[in-house]
């Protein structure tokens, strides 16, 4: 246990990066995913089709490949995408190019799952609701923003929570691409104290379990608070 107790500052800093990755990508993926979902059910056939192609492609690509694309391919396509211009320091945390590439990859990857979760939520809204909204003369944007999406968001809280929990776990992939978050810190501590690998593993596993359980607690609260009678 000494290996972790002596490095508690590193341990908490690593989980700080994990939480930061999760929070930033979580919010971005929700915004992007909502936009995609609107395209996905909208009246413009080309956008419906393009979104469905995008979602299918991204959902079937391993996250590592998405990360590789944004770490090595994107900078070649367009210079500023190397994110070298980014260097924010808050407290002891440095948010640099690696962090930005990780956030972009995680957000784009997760947004396709958010889109699917929201689409299933839209499908759960009863037909009468949309018909009533049209009957009082609302245009598509009004039907969506005033009537369907508020209900769809509520109906899709459980699938959205699963998507975001998957995102918490997926932040570990950033370890492969140079972000010093929990999994990469676990590997480096294990490398230094390999005789204590079990204790180190348990300590880091507990960190992830705590984050996941705290998030699910709030998601469950939100769901019971928001549940609508249908």
């Amino acid at each position, binding site marked *: 246990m000494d290996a972790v107790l002596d490095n508690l500052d590193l341990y908490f800093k690593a989980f700080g990066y994990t939480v930061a990755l999760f929070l930033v990508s979580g919010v971005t993926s929700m915004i992007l995913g909502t936009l995609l979902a609107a395209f996905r059910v909208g009246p413009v056939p080309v956008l419906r089709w393009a979104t469905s192609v995008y979602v299918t492609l991204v959902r079937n690509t*391993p996250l590592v*490949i998405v990360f590789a694309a944004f770490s090595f391919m994107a900078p*070649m396509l*367009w210079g500023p995408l190397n994110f070298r211009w980014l260097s924010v320091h808050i407290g002891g945390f440095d948010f640099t190019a690696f962090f930005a590439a990780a956030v972009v990859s995680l957000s784009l990857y997760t947004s396709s799952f958010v889109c699917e979760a929201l689409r299933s939520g839209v499908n759960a809204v009863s037909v009468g609701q949309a018909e009533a909204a049209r009957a009082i003369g609302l245009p598509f944007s009004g039907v969506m923003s005033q009537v369907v999406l508020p209900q769809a968001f509520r109906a899709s809280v459980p699938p959205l929570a699963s998507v975001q929990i998957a995102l918490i776990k997926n932040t570990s992939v950033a370890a492969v691409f140079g972000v010093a978050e929990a999994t990469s810190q676990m590997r480096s501590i294990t490398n230094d104290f390999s005789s204590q690998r079990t204790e180190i593993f348990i300590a880091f596993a507990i960190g992830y379990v705590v984050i996941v359980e705290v998030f699910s607690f709030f998601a469950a609260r939100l769901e019971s608070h928001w549940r609508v009678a249908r």
Partner: protein
Amino acid sequence: MSTTVLYEAAGPKARLRQRIYTAVSVVALLAIVVWFFWRLNESNQLSYDKWEAFVTPDYLRVILVDGLLRTLQMAFFAIIFAVLFGVFFGIGKLSDHAWVRWPSWLVVELFRAIPVLLLMVFTWYTLGIKAENSAFWAVIIALTLYNGAVLAEVLRAGILAVPNGQREAGYAIGMRKTQVMSIVLLPQAVKIMIPAIISQCVVALKDTALGIYVVAPGLTYVVKQVYLEFHNRVPAILVVGALYVLVNLLLTALASWLQKRYVREKKPLDTPPLGDVQRR
């Protein structure tokens, strides 16, 4: 709700507006595609020597046999073991005995909550980072534990989805608990589970790519050797991505075919989310 109830059949004004939206989005999408290939070409990524490795039969054979086949092997072993793991702990969670139920719940909940990559690093160090094939088995074990925990949840939902009369009929003709489970409930539950198992195959296959972090063999490893030799990282990323997407789409097609052919059940299984204490 089908999407067509979301908007009226378009009138003349709306048709014009939709045509404008369509035109704008077609132009935007085309611009993105053209820009993508133009930039690839500008940065010299489309030249023959960058793609040579992927059209030369000898290299192709190495990529497909040492790479893709080895990756598929890892995913295959992981899924077989995960199904066994899932059956064991899924039934454990339904046990009448608290001392079986609680540990099973703990194991399933734990392995669902921690990242596969963390498990992979741990099993890699446990097997010995220098030991032969340790990375190969580390990937398989990590994927087994994670996917097994997910499948345990699916199996439990599958068994609970079998109509209650089946279980009662089993007890009525004098079967034991074990017999009711293995002869009556499991066969029906597994049938309902088939699509879920296949979509878990897609997850397992995608996660084999994480093996790159523990230097595991497979597609990512082989292609890494290729791009180190040919300095063609971008084509390599595109090829690996395309191969994964292709295999996953084939698996998805298989899943929906099986669903139609054997299951005919439209409703997906209702598995509880993580940390849902009421429904353990």
